[in-house]
């Protein structure tokens, strides 16, 4: 995976537009993955990494090798934003464009890169050395502004550090050398920690405190699946990805489905802007996660598991592979785990490629199957027919970690923490306008104000709970509690001070959903564009009071008629600010004068015709004399 950097030094530069890929190379890549069409995403990622693009001729060859049609391959290649049909630079710099990064000054960093590398945003240099682009949240909001340089992550960028990085790259250094000039000597774990701080601010009892090794798995191996389900159910554990489904029941449903195979998938595709809790768990507690997946496999009768890691987290892939390898060596994965002859389980890592919608479990399964990351119609639910049609347990990273701890300490211990209906602890990833952004592991039930006091953000004017798909609340709601029944969240807490423009934030979040909609459902694909346009009218002061009704109507239509969670939650930034910040909207809208719309500008509408006709308007050019 580390090829291509040598190319940045000019020694080797395979490039799909200049010279055709030599015979056999594409076929070799395909055969590494058994010419399996279900591994299409891996094949395409490798082609992209090696040749910096997936050219039309290449797609023909991949299609031939995997026995697909060209259009099926192109369907996948064009879906994911980290795959490119046109050549990308050998070093591709992706700056995080999240609202938190914007407020932290990413624009200044961009202009430094533009200046030093001589490339403008969204473009590739003529010599194919550098590409510069924006990408949505890469999960580093606690250390914004951040960027990915190929798979290397740079954080806390300033114009000065960006200049140093850009100049080093321009001088032919590898991205790794920007992180540390002894990068090669570091272990995979040290490399991860050299790139990214985890900012663990408050360790709770369950996940980030001291965790004994394999205690949960050892207990689970002594129990029957039925006992495991009961334990997890009694603990009150609910999914930590956002939807909050009861974990024990999910496992029980999957196990009770009679099928040749069962699968366990870990959803580590945390794409919700402002979320980075899984990043911390994957780095700090990878063994606990795999332990939890192994327990789930034991309970559900699965022999195979997949860890779906978002493309932005490629920097920790080597470390996670090392963890898996170590566990295989210690007989914690593989055949006859810990001597249990009838229990075998292994895990592969499936890399994503930059698609938010793949965090939706149906889309995630599609992506694992080598398809475009489009959600599936439900029912059937994944527990009935999931990955390749087999019953599949899909859980969030945090959920698996909790499960392993519950098997260690017992259901009653976990159940006693938190509140009725929301048991145990939760990781909150806090970022934005606060003194101590980072990870807080807290029992459910704290009020927003209590959390703000902890993070040094009591000055906040607004808090976004649960990322863009959650809700934005104002000061009058800071007494509300972080539980499933009051303010449910997957963990993202974004703090905004009184200096921030609410409409700018809403506008950004809508542009995020416009970008990330998979396009399958028209109301989501088109409706979100209309919503964003309407917000633009409020921002420019051209909105009418009836536009507020329009926002509500259109939002209701999108929620009602989209088939996955993206469309069902994408109007939330608008709906929750309409509810909690109504004055923002009433202050920025007014009735149009004489019923004539301000948004229609006759001068710009006739401008191109004026130039073509080379004359002015009799009607609308006041100074017309001829």
């Amino acid at each position, binding site marked *: 995976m580390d090829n291509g950097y040598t190319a940045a030094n000019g020694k080797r530069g395979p490039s799909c537009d200049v010279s055709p890929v030599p015979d056999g190379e594409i076929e070799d890549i395909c055969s590494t993955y058994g010419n399996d069409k279900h591994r299409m995403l891996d094949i395409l990622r490798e082609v992209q990494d090696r040749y910096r693009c997936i050219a039309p001729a290449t797609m023909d060859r991949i299609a031939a090798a995997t026995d697909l049609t060209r259009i099926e391959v192109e369907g996948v290649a064009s879906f994911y934003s980290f795959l490119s049909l046109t050549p990308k630079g050998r070093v591709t710099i992706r700056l995080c464009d999240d609202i938190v990064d914007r407020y932290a000054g990413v624009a200044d960093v961009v202009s430094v890169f533009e200046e030093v590398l001589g490339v403008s945003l969204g473009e590739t240099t003529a010599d194919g050395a550098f590409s510069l682009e924006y990408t949505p949240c890469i999960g580093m909001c606690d250390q914004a502004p951040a960027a990915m340089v190929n798979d290397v992550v740079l954080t806390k960028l300033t114009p000065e550090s960006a200049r140093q990085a850009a100049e080093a790259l321009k001088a032919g250094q590898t991205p790794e050398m920007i992180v540390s000039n002894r990068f090669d000597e570091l272990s995979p774990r040290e490399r991860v920690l050299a790139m990214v701080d985890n900012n663990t601010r408050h360790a709770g009892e369950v996940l980030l405190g001291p965790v004994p090794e394999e205690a949960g798995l050892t207990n689970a191996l002594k129990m029957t699946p039925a006992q495991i389900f009961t334990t997890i159910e009694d603990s009150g554990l609910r999914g930590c990805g956002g939807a909050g489904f009861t974990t024990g029941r999910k496992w029980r449903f999957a196990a009770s489905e009679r099928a040749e195979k069962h699968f366990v998938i870990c959803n580590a595709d945390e794409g919700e802007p402002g979320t980075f809790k899984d990043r911390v768990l994957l780095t700090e507690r990878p063994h606990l996660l795999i332990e939890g997946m192994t327990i789930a496999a034991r309970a559900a009768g699965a022999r195979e598991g997949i860890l779906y890691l978002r493309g932005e987290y490629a920097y920790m892939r080597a470390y996670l592979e090392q963890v898996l390898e170590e566990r295989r060596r210690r007989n914690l994965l593989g055949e006859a785990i810990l001597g249990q002859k009838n229990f075998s389980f292994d895990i592969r890592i499936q890399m994503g490629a930059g698609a938010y919608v793949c965090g939706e479990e149906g889309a995630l399964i599609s992506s694992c199957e080598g398809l475009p990351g489009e959600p599936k119609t439900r029912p059937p639910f994944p527990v009935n027919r999931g990955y390749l049609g087999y019953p599949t347990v899909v859980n969030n990273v945090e959920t698996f970690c909790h499960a392993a701890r519950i098997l260690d300490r017992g259901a009653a211990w976990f159940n006693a923490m938190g509140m009725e209906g929301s048991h145990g602890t939760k990781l909150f990833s806090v970022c934005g306008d606060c003194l101590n952004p980072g990870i807080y592991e807290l029992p459910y039930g704290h009020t927003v104000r209590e959390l703000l006091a902890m993070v040094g953000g009591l000055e906040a004017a607004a808090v976004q709970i649960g990322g863009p798909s959650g809700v934005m609340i104002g000061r009058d709601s800071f007494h509300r509690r972080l539980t499933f029944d009051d303010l449910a969240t997957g963990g993202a807490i974004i703090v905004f001070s009184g200096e921030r423009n609410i409409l700018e934030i809403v506008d950004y979040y809508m542009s995020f959903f416009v970008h990330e909609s998979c396009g399958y459902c028209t109301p989501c694909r088109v409706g979100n564009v209309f919503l964003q346009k309407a917000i633009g009218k409020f921002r420019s002061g051209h909105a009418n009071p009836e536009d507020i009704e329009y926002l509500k109507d259109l939002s209701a239509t999108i929620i009602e008629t989209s088939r996955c969670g993206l469309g069902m939650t994408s109007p939330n930034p608008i709906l929750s600010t309409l509810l909690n910040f109504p004055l923002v909207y009433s202050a920025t809208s007014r009735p149009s004068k004489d019923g*004539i719309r301000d948004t229609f500008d006759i001068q710009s509408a006739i401008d191109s015709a004026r130039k073509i006709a080379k004359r002015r308007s009799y009607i609308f050019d006041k100074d017309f004399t001829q």
Partner: protein
Amino acid sequence: MSELPKARVATASLAGCFGCHMAILDIDERLIELMKLVDVDRSPLTDKKRFTERCDIGIIEGGCCNEENVHVLHDFRRNCDVLIALGQCAIMGGLPAMRNAIMHSDAPLRECLDEAYITGKYIRNTTHNVPNDPALPLLLDEVYPCSQVVEIDYQIPGCAPSGDIIFDTLLKLLTGKFRGFEGDMIRFD
């Protein structure tokens, strides 16, 4: 009924095909009944080019494709209490709005005119020029539905709307009984 003061109605055809005005005539003999309730002010039906006084209802056919359409629509909005968009072109832009689909071009309007007058396969235009008489109103960059230019109070859908729906809607509006369309009135298949 004759005791009620008559309502004043004005109509105009903007970027439309006059089909909607033809549909008004499809009201047939019920026009006599309608004329007992209304006086027609500015309209192609009366050939009056200007408003003689303020009107109760303005009926607009077609969207806005040029500056003159915008001018007329502004005039209607200022002089009518209630403005009705009649037919698909007025409501959505309709057939003329097909040119809005030229969106991946640096000069979409230029491209549209070139194809219409010069490069189009079936064009016979011996002058090889795009018409540019000073009397021709300037085209807009794209075709706009009426509701994007002014506030529209009611929309009567159809291409063209039937004489029945026009008659029925006007009658209900004039007697204050309009509560939206019946399902079968706006069913087109």
